[in-house]
């Protein structure tokens, strides 16, 4: 009786099935752990102050972020914000006009009582400069504000002189 033997298996390519498993795990990890950045018009060059305390804002839908840049020896700070899907400078005053106030009033009109302004101020900003932005926010009738900070290490803050 003729025996049939298995023909030799040729050396094929690398078995990629375990690689798929690992890559799928990584994808699921990144999908769960990251959140796609929603464009808020934030300026990452601004050095935010540190704070131990802080809350998260879950719903960013009714917020407007104002980037308040530090301008040394200037009375009026430079403010940038996302207006009509574009991040651009919004002047506090322009002659008799107050563009920032107009933007804030329009924002309050579109979002009503849920309006919230997020202030991203440079840590070296002076209150004299920040005050002008706060005045504009107050004149627009918005009381809900949030001051964005970076988380600080409580031990480092306690150890600081």
């Amino acid at each position: 009786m003729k025996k049939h033997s298995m023909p030799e298996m040729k050396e094929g390519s690398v078995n990629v099935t375990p690689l798929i498993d690992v890559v799928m795990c990584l994808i699921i990890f990144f999908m769960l752990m990251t959140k796609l950045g929603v464009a808020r018009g934030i300026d990452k060059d601004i050095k935010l102050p540190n704070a131990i305390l802080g809350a998260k804002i879950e719903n960013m839908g009714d917020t407007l972020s104002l980037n308040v840049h530090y301008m040394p020896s200037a009375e009026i700070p430079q403010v940038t914000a996302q207006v009509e899907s574009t991040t651009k400078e919004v002047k506090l005053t322009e002659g008799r006009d107050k563009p920032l106030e107009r933007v804030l009033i329009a924002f309050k009109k579109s979002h009503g009582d849920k309006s919230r302004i997020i202030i991203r101020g440079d840590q070296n900003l002076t209150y004299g400069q920040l005050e002008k932005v706060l005045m504009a926010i107050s004149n627009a009738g918005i009381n809900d504000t949030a001051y964005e900070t970076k988380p600080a290490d409580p031990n480092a803050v306690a150890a600081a002189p």
Partner: protein
Amino acid sequence: MKMKGAKQVHYESGPNMIPLVDVVMVILIFLMLAGTFGGATQFLLSKQGLHKKGSSAAKPDPNKPIDTPVEIHIDNIPDPSSPDGGGFRAQGTGIKPTASGDMLRQELEAKLAQFKAAGTSPDQLEIVLYPGRNVKYRNLIEVYQAALQAKYTKVAFATSH
């Protein structure tokens, strides 16, 4: 004599996985680049509007009692030798002058204990910060944070002195 060739054995190798690996890699790289890990920043929240000179922030609600203000005056203390350019000094009625956020927190906690002993709840108190024009934003945040750590729920800024 007819020679018969060896039978070609064809193995079912399944679907080709290599394009799948390519697609999965692209998705992975996209998620790595586009996503941002949450928790990078936090917020100090405030629903108290700006206190302007000669008036309080919001229109008083006749159905609610007026909040008792706890005023804190903040001055800038320049120090050219300091890497930060200087610090601050915070003081108020019944609050000893201090240049430390931690000491200020302790002073505010002591003051809160006095109010509680007198029957005033923290919800009826409002910390009003009166910063000088040259006070740095990072020092303001430190004072703001001290007030929140001392369990005050309402903290507002006033126009500068």
